[in-house]
């Protein structure tokens, strides 16, 4: 018996390592989430509690620097491990559609969500959004009303924007290229440079610059602004370009995607339905995520403006996704990288 | 005046007695062979004299000066002008033959011209003058021996301590180097303390033999007396 001690221990250990993974194939739902874990995990735990379906999540790392989860989804394309992808913006969802990783699913939860926040064939559906807003320090007497404030000489050297190669900043710039056309967009970028815009590493850092008074204004996500206001910083959120003939505010919804050939399709659909519900949107609006429900009439705290009260930019996210890849070299050059 | 005096010196390591009440006087120019089996304390005597360890009790004097007493080292090794050839020779592998000899001379503040003179002189004496730029690893056992000897003698020490320096060599080389050592002693006249476990070696090298056993001196005999037996 003694001489079998080591092999027996080795087999037991191997079983302890392998078995947890084997069980995941049998039940539950696997979700890869780019939405910050602190916001997404409570929703997923609620789903577990409400439905009894175990959730096995993979969370993304710090937003500006990685798309680890996207890497995995694309790398695992031929043998998908995930059932659902919870993106924190629709461009990644579009990429998954374009890379044939997504499957079409028209969720009943998608009813009531405006059409331009959904893929027409149902490959992804938007929910709980952030708006791209101007965060302005209270010391600014005449508050800007448009993103063109970046080229306004009155704000020369006093503006900041997050690194245009990552995240929602890239998405918005690509949307502007589509909305305005290449020439006007390029001119805007040049004007920003001429107006001595500072480049920060993230929306959060931009918000901190404005909060400290080092900068007068910045384009940030609405949750960054909401958090600074909650912290009592002397700042104000302005939803830009709300006038009649103006383009409206760029909206960045979360997006949920059904993964093609995922191991648990039925459970996946139940999770998607849950995520797209008004109740989930209410929870995300009430949390520190401060996200804007896309269903109308959802209860939100005062600091979160309702979608029906925002003039939104009518962006074609599929076109934006394509444009982003196209303008990447230009943005690298613009950012000096 | 005696050059070296050990007066009632005792030393223990981790409770084990290495030397007990050891007393010895060495006159200038004398060749003293310390003979005894392994573990009898021979090496301890040399290490006490060199200044690497302090006696637990007793006094050690060199050239009329007390250098260690009752657990304290009063004079550091580099101040005692004692030369030593270790059992494993301890030639510095990263230095050439010249570098090995020069290290101590530089440390003592000897001028460059004199360093060159002394190094060349002593290496000629030990017949290693063509190996200035050679590293120890490239030398044979006998050659390394001679370099170790030269390194100790180049500093013109008051006394030379040798800790079983020939024990790793074959009989023929051993004999040859014993002869070399005696020749050098005749030429330079240094005081020698030579530790060995080999009776024949002790009788040939020393003018007197100190027999040790279990940390104490069993007896001191002149080599004439030993040869006559």
């Amino acid at each position, binding site marked *: 018996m003694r001489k079998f001690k080591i092999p027996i221990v080795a087999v037991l250990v191997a079983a302890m390592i392998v078995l947890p993974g084997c069980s995941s194939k049998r039940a539950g739902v696997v979700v890869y989430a780019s939405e910050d*874990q602190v916001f997404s995990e409570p929703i997923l735990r609620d789903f577990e509690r409400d439905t009894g379906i175990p959730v096995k999540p993979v969370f993304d790392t710090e937003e500006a*620097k990685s798309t680890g989860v996207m890497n995995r989804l694309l790398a695992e394309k031929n043998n998908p491990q995930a059932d659902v992808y919870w993106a924190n913006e629709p461009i990644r969802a579009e990429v998954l559609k374009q890379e044939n990783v997504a499957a079409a699913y028209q969720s009943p939860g998608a009813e009531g969500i405006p059409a331009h926040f959904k893929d027409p064939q149902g490959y992804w559906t938007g929910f709980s959004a952030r708006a791209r807003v101007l965060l302005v320090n209270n010391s600014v007497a005449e508050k800007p009303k448009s993103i063109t404030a970046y080229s306004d000489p009155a704000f020369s050297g006093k503006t900041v924007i997050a690194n245009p190669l990552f995240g929602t900043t890239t998405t918005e710039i690509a949307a502007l290229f589509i909305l305005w056309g290449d020439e006007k967009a390029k001119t805007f970028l040049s004007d920003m440079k001429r107006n001595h815009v500072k480049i920060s590493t993230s929306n959060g850092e931009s918000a901190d610059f404005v909060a400290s008074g080092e900068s007068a204004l910045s384009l940030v996500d609405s949750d960054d602004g909401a958090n600074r206001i909650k912290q009592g910083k002397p700042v104000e959120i302005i939803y830009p370009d709300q006038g009649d003939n103006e383009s409206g505010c760029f909206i960045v919804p979360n997006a949920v995607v059904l993964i093609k050939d995922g191991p648990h399709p039925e459970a996946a659909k139940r999770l998607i339905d849950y995520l797209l519900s008004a109740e989930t949107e209410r929870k995300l609006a009430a949390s520190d995520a401060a996200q804007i429900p896309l269903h109308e009439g959802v209860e939100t705290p005062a600091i979160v403006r309702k979608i029906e009260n925002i003039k939104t930019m009518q962006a074609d996210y599929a076109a934006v996704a394509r444009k982003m890849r196209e303008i990447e070299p230009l943005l690298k050059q613009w950012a000096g990288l | 005046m005696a050059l070296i005096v050990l007066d009632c010196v005792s030393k223990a*390591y981790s409770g084990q007695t290495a030397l007990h009440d050891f007393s010895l006087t060495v006159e200038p120019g004398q060749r003293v062979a310390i003979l005894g089996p392994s573990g009898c304390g021979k090496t301890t005597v040399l290490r006490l004299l060199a200044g690497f360890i302090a006696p637990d009790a007793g006094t050690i004097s060199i050239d009329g000066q007390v250098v260690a007493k009752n657990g304290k080292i009063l004079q550091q090794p580099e101040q*005692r002008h004692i030369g030593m050839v270790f059992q494993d020779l301890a030639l510095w592998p990263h230095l050439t033959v010249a570098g090995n000899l020069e290290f101590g001379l530089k440390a003592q503040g000897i001028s460059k011209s004199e360093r060159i003179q002394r190094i060349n002189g002593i290496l000629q004496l030990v017949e290693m003058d063509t190996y200035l730029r050679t590293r120890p690893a490239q030398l044979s056992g006998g050659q390394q021996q001679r370099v170790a000897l030269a390194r100790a003698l180049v500093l013109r020490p008051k006394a030379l301590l040798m800790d079983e320096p020939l024990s790793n060599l074959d009989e023929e080389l051993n004999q040859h180097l014993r002869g070399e050592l005696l020749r050098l002693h005749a030429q330079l006249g240094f005081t020698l303390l030579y530790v060995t476990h080999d009776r024949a070696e002790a009788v040939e090298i020393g003018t007197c033999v100190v027999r040790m056993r279990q940390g104490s001196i069993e007896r001191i005999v002149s080599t004439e007396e030993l040869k006559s037996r």
Partner: protein
Amino acid sequence: MNTRRVTLCAALLVLLILGVAPIALMFARSLSVNGAFSLESYQHLLATGRSWQLLSNSLGLAMITAVICTLVGLPLGLLFAKTDLPLRRVFVLLFTLPLVIPPYIMAVSWSDTLAPHGLASSFFGPATTQKLSGLLFGSPGCVLVLASTFMPAVMLATMTFTRTINPRLEEAARLSARALRVLGGITIPLIWPGVLLAATLVFLLALGEFGVPTFLRYQVFAVESFTQFTASYNFGAATAAAVPLALLTFLLLGIEWFALREKIQPLRPASESDSNYHVSLRSYRVPLFALVSILCAIVVLTPVLSLLLQGGSTQSYLRAFRVVSDSLMRSIFLAAIGATALTALGFFTGYLIHTRGLSIWRAVDAGTVLLFALPGTVIGMGLITLWNRPATNFIYATPLIIVFGYLAQYTALTGRVTVAGLTLVPASMEEAAATVGANWMRRLGLIVLPLVKHALVAGWLIAYIFCLRDTGIAMLVYPPGYDTLPVRIFTLMANGAPSLIAAACMLMIAATVLPLLGVAALVRTQRRRRLWR
């Protein structure tokens, strides 16, 4: 059948499958665009100024880190190993602490320290703290964090090699020279090749470091490898970005083999009656003690204290434990398994290298070091490419994939420790056993293994530390719902409460340090028992 040869080949096969195959696949992919052979990824790499800038950043950071670690670690090692500086053992423990902490946790800690209401602000005021904070995010901060983390490697190498050089060599010098000259003329030259090896290791670690430059927003090649997907999801480009690191590793290996290996003095087991002498510092004692204390306070105590304070009250720590305990347990479990597997594989690869058991021993040595130097993200991508298939789901969809990643990345560590241990065992030991009729397996198990057991324990501990703090591999391949604590901390950094992150970091430190203290206590107890016998 030659059992020795078969066993060594089996170990080599394991290394090939776990380590080389994933990388080879990634390399093959980097040479293909849309199914056809293409060097586009490499052309793009070389053509853009950005690539050269990143390479320059990587090299610069690694070089400066290695130099600072040597300039600080060597004197500290000598002070602690060869002088009568008070509280030497305490200092050694304290200075070694950053080495066992994942580097990015130190980065987080420094960020907290220099935050507007952090520890530094209490001493230096908000304005100075803000200036210092500005320096932290960038290359100065990366150098500070990496140098304080890796300096102990050089310090410990100095102490190890100092203690095991032949004391006669120093004694021979002491007969004519003072302590400082002996140190400078004899001790340091003798240990220098060993210290340089440690510096080379530091260089490689700094070169492949991912977490710290990411957090401190400094663009280097290891980060580039990870962020290549942000715009273009380009596996080929990500692998191409890792190739310069591989080439640098080969270059370093070449220098190590030709310039250093032969010059390193063989380690001599330190014996109690034969210890190296200690230098009395005399009037320098107090000022040197003060200097070392200040350095320790700045480099070690400040960030650790900051984390401890940021973690909050006991309640806060308990809450954090409740939140991350599952990840913590998984991390400890996987690290222990990983360390055990690494010790086993490292033993055989080390044996192969030391005894030159196969003609390709140099390739094995080079291969393990190369895998160690590559960013964990490249290895992670390779693992996905190789193992994510329905037939191998029992590997890929389980924590076993993480263990595979550990084996691929860290075998060099345990292999090299084994080589160091085997160097102390004369070949005659095995030969003597052979002459009395023991076969190879018996000689290995009953003669060699017991003689190198201390090296194996040391190797296990080192492997445990590296597995526990691994982020790059785990982040890419952890099975859903099976995140490790370093990954959890990284994900929490996005909008997680600072106190929760700090408390989780402290739990990570405890998980790393406590087993080491346990082993140290066990070793001390065993030594005392041996003395009493």
